[in-house]
């Protein structure tokens, strides 16, 4: 139990340093780098478990699997490099806190509930750019440091109910909220031009709902299907409404198959209509927006019955690009899990290698995920 408390403290310490993270260069575009509603367990399986995972925020029906009070949290540290037209940047690192969950059973009812926190879109970045301007007939060099710190969070309240034996339905309300602290510092090569410093607080809000079904055909085979619709993302800069961006409809489906008790194969497919955002982004001269597909699959082997080993693969398209080329991401994952405190604490560790290409950049990252699930 003491070890469990130590890890929780460690996770909280890591969480305190989150926010300033630059998850991906692609976070500069559109509404940001779109997050994954996965816990560490599912991430280690290439997010293939998302459609049937009670800890993921994708399918609200999966909440029906919850049998007791559950608390979970995760941290992700990433080590990145990327190559753009102007060169290669290496040794970027950051840590963030992208996921938390509290779930349980409503006393005296067959209804289960869950409240999730996950990153909907990450908008943290700090970029240096140099440009030339012609001002008053003279060429003036300008150097800009643009910093955005923050993210759009997805707060989900979900309930699940076992309608029939083996059929669970669920529904959830998603509240999109969050803010970014944005700064622009510009200096000029000509000292007659005074340095500029813009600081503003950009807040985001939106609403969505999701419905899902979880069908257990047998103890070996389960299917999950979910539908999610978000309205528009309202953006306000320094409390002044400035932009509405249509958000996508998301349809997902997946399965979980256990041919033998200690082997599990999972897969999830997700489609999102991110092109719905294209007109709004185009109206402000923003990035192109594309519909996205993502496919994740994973294999879990639990030979000892104590320490499952997980392998995962994920291919996903990314929705935003300033070029006609739609970026995509390929993840290979490896993970383990183990129990502590007599089974009241579950720890998951995942390591991912991410390759993101397209839209004028190529990005590589190692991502270390740490997750803890407490069953008090």
């Amino acid at each position, binding site marked *: 139990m003491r070890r469990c408390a130590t890890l929780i403290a460690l996770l909280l310490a890591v969480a305190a340093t989150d926010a300033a993270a630059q998850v991906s260069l692609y976070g500069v575009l559109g509404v940001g780098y779109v997050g994954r509603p996965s816990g560490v367990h599912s991430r280690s399986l290439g997010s293939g478990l998302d459609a049937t995972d009670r800890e993921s925020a994708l399918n609200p029906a999966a909440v029906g699997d919850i049998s007791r009070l559950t608390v979970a949290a995760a941290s992700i540290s990433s080590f990145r490099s990327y190559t753009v037209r102007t060169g290669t940047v290496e040794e970027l690192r950051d840590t963030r806190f992208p996921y938390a969950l509290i779930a349980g059973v409503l006393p005296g009812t067959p209804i289960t509930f869950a409240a999730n926190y996950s990153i909907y879109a990450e908008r943290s970045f700090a970029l240096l750019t140099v440009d030339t301007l012609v001002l008053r007939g003279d060429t003036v060099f300008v150097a800009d440091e643009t910093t955005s710190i923050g993210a759009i969070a997805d707060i989900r309240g979900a309930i699940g109910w076992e309608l029939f034996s083996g059929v669970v339905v669920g529904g959830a309300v998603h509240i999109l909220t969050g803010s970014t602290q944005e700064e622009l510092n510009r200096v000029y090569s000509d000292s007659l031009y*005074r340095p500029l410093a813009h600081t503003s607080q950009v807040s985001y809000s939106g609403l969505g709902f999701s419905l899902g079904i979880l069908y257990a055909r047998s103890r070996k085979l389960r299917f999950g299907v979910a539908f999610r619709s978000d309205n528009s993302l309202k953006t306000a800069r320094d409390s002044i409404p400035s932009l509405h961006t249509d958000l996508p409809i998301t349809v997902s489906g997946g399965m979980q198959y256990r041919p033998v008790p200690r082997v599990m194969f999972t897969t999830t497919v997700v489609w999102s209509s991110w092109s719905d955002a294209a007109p709004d982004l185009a109206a402000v001269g923003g990035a192109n927006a594309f519909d996205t597909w993502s496919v994740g699959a994973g294999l879990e082997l639990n030979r000892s019955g104590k320490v499952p080993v997980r392998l995962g693969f994920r291919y996903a398209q990314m929705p935003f690009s300033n070029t006609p080329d739609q970026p995509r991401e390929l993840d290979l994952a490896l993970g383990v899990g183990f129990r502590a405190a007599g089974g009241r604490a579950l720890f998951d560790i995942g390591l991912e290698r991410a390759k993101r290409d397209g839209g004028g950049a190529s990005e590589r990252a190692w991502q270390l995920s740490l997750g803890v699930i407490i069953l008090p």
Partner: protein
Amino acid sequence: MTRRRSRALVRASLWLGLSLVVMWSCREDVVAPGSCPEFCPTRLVREIDTLFLGSIVDDSSYVGYVPAYSAAFMEAVSEGSAPESRSLIRYISFTKVIVEAREILSLDSFQLDLRVRRVSDPTVGLELLIYRLPVAVDTTTTFTDTEPWFQDSTLIATIAVPDSLGDDSTVSVVLPLSAFPDFVADSLTAAVGVGMRGVSGGEGYAHLGTRDGTRPSLFSRWLTVVDTVPLVLDSAELDTLDLDSIPADSMVVDTIQVRDARQPDMDTYVFVAWPPRAAEALAVGSAPAWRSLLRVDLPVYVTDSSDISRATLYLVPSEAVRGAPGDTLRLRADALAADVGAKSPLLAFPDTSATGAADVFVGSTDTVAIEVTHILKALRTDTLLPASIMLRIVPEGSQSGQLRFWSSRNTAFAPSLHVTFIPLFPRPEPQ
């Protein structure tokens, strides 16, 4: 037991390693070069550069800020120039007491040390002319009043301005006793006038230090005094010392020259007043000093909703800049803590380099451009500041020169603002 121990050791090692990895990865290192236009979040930052005609309104000129006798410097401009300026200095009276407790044996000569802050090109052949003035000279003396005093009959010294004379130099001249024949009668007070002359018709000017500045011109008398006292006397008897009553063989007497220097108790300069300016013109400079108050009327989207990177105020002279030939006027723009008209208090900026200033050449008719970025930028951060600019020539009251420029009443040549700014909205949230 050993097996359990080794398991515990492996487990502890794993935890330690994991903790180290997490702690190492906690470091944030996220600042990276961007790549435009593919990954360039500031591509929507628009730098707008616009000349705002009619952006200066309700402008006025006021006089009387710093009179010539309170200025940090005074001016002497060569004879025949327009205008000719003359410096007038009256010194604190000397006392009759023994200098440093020594008895004065004789008054030998005088010395005048002129502190020259700046002088026009000395190679044209310039002379400083020192005149004896009546001690009645004061701050109300006019240029016309000085005419009888700046004559050959009262000229007591001529100092050729050396070619090597630089800024902040001292020019000294020793004057004979005959330069001030009425010195004792004038109760040990002296006054001098300083004029300037071009040897071969050249024109020039000199700026001299004053008592209100940091380096006033000094007036000294050279005295011969007793240096050694009788050996037979003790110190108590020194107060009643009568040299004639002491036998010559009982004392050792020597004499030395000492200098007794005085600072001015009044210094000023006079010149012929400038002709009136045009009806639609404003003025800055001269003495007593003029200032001009300009009120800024920029669109709200510039002052409130934009970040100004550069703002330049343009002034169109209504006539050639007046002043000493070859002189330069330093025009300065200040923000106001409150706009109450002529007596508006100037706002002191902690960063002096941020204060707008421009050099204006006498005789020039070119448009004057002065940077006022610091003033307009301050309007957005402090909404209580008045949108006003006070223009003046610094140091105030130290030069006869004056800049006259068209006011907002002359729509064709009214002052205008050239502003480079970035609108705060919209900014690149979802791009």
